[in-house]
């Protein structure tokens, strides 16, 4: 593209699309055509850039100018003022003193200091994910070529071992060791699987990684295929991610055309094919043995391990399963060396981790930070603090199987061991910020409802344990909690943790146990004082009308039980016996004259 003077990158993530990025794209194209600049300007659609709260995002290169909240009407101005007159459209420039701006400037640079560091997401937002040339121009498939021409399979495994990379799906098992086991397992046929069954609610890093840079995953898998002696790779991906599936299909097709997948890759002896298999909405299928059963066309239920999949996996053959994020690290490790990789992070957890930061935080989106960054850094420096002026209450890490950590743990470093030590887990990287308006008992109940529903029902501790715990929690939130309930929850929780068959049941009690540990007072308030401080548990609330009431009668009209009485322009009252605590009056009142406590 010799004539190209400007590259405009448009975020094509769901948040930006929702906010109108597609119409912005049309408007940009129109403006470009109007000024006859089609040859000089190229427009990219990128995967989610992680700046969801500022969307739609438009980046103009060279210069890394990031424009946020761009509307259709702004498009022409960007083209005319920035591209033609060479002046920034100042009012749209995203200019905040956190890392969103900075990490774009350090891209391609080896300066990994600073709070964010993008290794697995290194190409996301930089390349056109549907164009293999873009990936190739940023050292794409160079690692695969290096492996095929310079390294023996053993060298590759040793390099991964040296890097200290651990499974990013949540388990944290050393990746190199897993590769070694699979390579040495007896058998003539082996499989390589990419686990893209990202089922944790509140986590979307795998989706973004695939949508933004699908070739990295394919390259990582092909390298592993060479290292362990496999010719067949499978990506198991959620059916709920149509765009990611489409981009993967395109990437596989393009890679095959360029002899980067298929028979005799790059003229070598090595052949490797990748196939896509769709999940069908079962959370437990993220567990490796369940995932294998699902690919085999059965109910996705886990089985006891050992034998581990590395010995007896898909169709009874040795199988190597890694998560999307783990795969994305492989090409970097091969190119820059395991030693370099191991210089990032903490003693036991190397490299970076991508987190999906969401909930009551100002900057929701994806962040990639070196292991060992503190939760405080993530929430306040990168996340920008609490949205809506509320008070920080807890941070929930690790998805529905993780724990809730209160403020005093904010200085905990994120790595596998530190998070486990305070009763939570790394998990796949979901991070939800909870403020004072959430009730912790209700939050625990919410997570348990999820895991209970997703329990496959095979083993008793998980199937029955989560059910009984949920019953107790429901009772507590309805104001029917009994003395001894907390202890019963602790006993049941510990039992399920210790005796469940797979990770789902073993970690399902985490939200309950961690909220009991860190927010015991709230449980006691519910049970003994019949109070919900956060004002969430309906049955424990009392609605009262205060002096601010102007007597408009709006509450009276919506009350389904006619519990509100009063004459026009006079202070109204609620008959507490008739009130069913539906909260409709509270939502309707425009004068903040109704309180709940």
């Amino acid at each position: 593209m010799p004539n190209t003077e400007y590259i405009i990158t448009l975020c094509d993530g769901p948040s930006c699309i929702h906010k109108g990025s597609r119409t912005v794209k049309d408007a940009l194209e129109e403006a470009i055509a109007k000024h006859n600049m089609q040859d000089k300007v190229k427009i990219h659609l990128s995967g989610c850039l992680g700046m969801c709260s500022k969307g739609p995002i438009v980046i103009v290169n060279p210069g890394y100018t990031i424009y946020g909240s761009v509307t259709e009407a702004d498009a022409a101005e960007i083209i005319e003022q920035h591209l033609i007159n060479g002046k920034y459209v100042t009012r749209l420039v995203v200019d905040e003193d956190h890392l969103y701006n900075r990490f774009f400037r350090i891209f391609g640079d080896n300066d990994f200091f600073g709070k964010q560091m993008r290794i697995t997401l290194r190409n996301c937002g930089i390349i056109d994910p549907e164009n293999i040339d873009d990936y190739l121009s940023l050292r794409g498939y160079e690692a695969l070529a290096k492996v095929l021409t310079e390294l023996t399979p053993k060298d590759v495994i040793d390099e991964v071992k040296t890097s200290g990379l651990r499974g990013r799906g949540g388990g944290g098992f050393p990746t190199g060791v897993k590769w070694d086991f699979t390579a040495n397992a007896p058998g003539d046929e082996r499989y390589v699987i990419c686990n893209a069954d990202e089922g944790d609610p509140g986590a979307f890093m795998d989706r973004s990684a695939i949508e933004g840079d699908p070739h990295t995953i394919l390259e990582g898998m092909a390298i592993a295929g060479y290292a362990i002696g496999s010719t067949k790779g499978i990506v198991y991906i959620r059916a709920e991610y149509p765009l990611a599936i489409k981009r993967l299909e395109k990437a596989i097709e393009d890679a095959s055309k360029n002899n980067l997948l298929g028979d005799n890759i790059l003229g070598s002896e090595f052949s490797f094919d990748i196939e896509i298999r769709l999940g069908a909405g079962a959370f437990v299928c993220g567990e490796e043995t369940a995932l294998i059963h699902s690919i085999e066309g059965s109910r996705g239920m886990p089985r006891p391990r050992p034998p581990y999949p590395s010995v007896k996996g898909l169709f009874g053959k040795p199988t190597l399963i890694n998560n999307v994020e783990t795969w994305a690290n492989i090409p970097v490790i091969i190119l820059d060396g395991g030693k370099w990789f191991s210089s990032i992070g903490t003693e036991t957890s190397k490299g970076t981790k991508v987190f999906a930061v969401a909930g009551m935080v100002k900057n929701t989106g994806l962040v990639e930070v070196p292991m060992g960054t503190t939760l405080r850094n993530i929430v306040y420096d990168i996340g920008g603090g609490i949205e809506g002026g509320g008070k920080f209450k807890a941070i929930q890490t690790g998805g529905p199987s993780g724990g809730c950590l209160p403020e005093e743990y904010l200085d905990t470093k994120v790595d596998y061991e530190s998070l486990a030590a305070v009763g939570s887990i790394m998990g796949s990287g979901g991070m939800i910020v909870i403020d004072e308006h959430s009730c912790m008992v209700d939050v625990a109940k919410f997570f348990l409802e999820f895991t209970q529903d997703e329990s496959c029902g095979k083993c008793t501790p998980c199937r029955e344990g989560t059910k009984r715990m949920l019953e107790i929690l429901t009772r507590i939130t309805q104001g029917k909690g009994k003395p001894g309930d907390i202890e019963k929850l602790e006993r049941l929780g510990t039992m399920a943790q210790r005796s469940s068959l797979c990770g789902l049941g073993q970690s399902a009690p985490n939200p309950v146990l961690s909220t009991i540990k860190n927010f015991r007072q709230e449980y006691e308030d519910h049970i003994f004082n019949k109070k919900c401080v956060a004002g969430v548990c309906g049955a424990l609330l009392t609605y009262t009308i205060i002096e601010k009431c102007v007597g408009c009668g709006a509450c009276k009209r919506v009350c389904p039980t006619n519990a509100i009485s009063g004459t026009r322009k006079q202070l109204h009252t609620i008959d507490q016996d008739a009130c069913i605590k539906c909260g409709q009056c509270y939502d309707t009142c425009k004068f903040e004259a109704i309180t709940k406590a």
Partner: protein
Amino acid sequence: MIEMKDQKIDELKEYIAATQSNDNPESYLIAVLHKVQGLFGYLPREVMDVVAKAMNIPTAHIWGVATFYHYFNLKPVGKHIVSVCMGTACYVRGAGKVLEALKKNIGVEIGETSEDKLFTLQEARCLGACGIAPVIMIDDKIYGELTGKTATELIKKYRKAAKG
């Protein structure tokens, strides 16, 4: 109508036949069920027998698989599928209220289809659009930053469009 169904069944049989030449043909069952749902909108009981014969797998096993996964609908669905994201991020930002408002407006519980066959209400795990929570998805379009009120307005819009 029957003709259309036969056509779909033929297409399905063709699809199955293509998978049967691969290694481990029975492992394509879930892919085949996706295809069935793509064609019919749900998994009709009688079509399961067609799949069973074509893939040489007992219907009971197929039914076992179909009921295990949330993604498969076992009952016919409405014209529009409304999925309310109940992921954590949406939940802490008020997805519960959105769901209540939709239940009331559409007049159904989760998993049910409205009487006019226009809407099926579903809960979704996480739509991966946490940045604009709470979100709902109507068919394959995502709507974010909703409240109970704006969500009902959306439904009203769809209802109007269906009438006009």
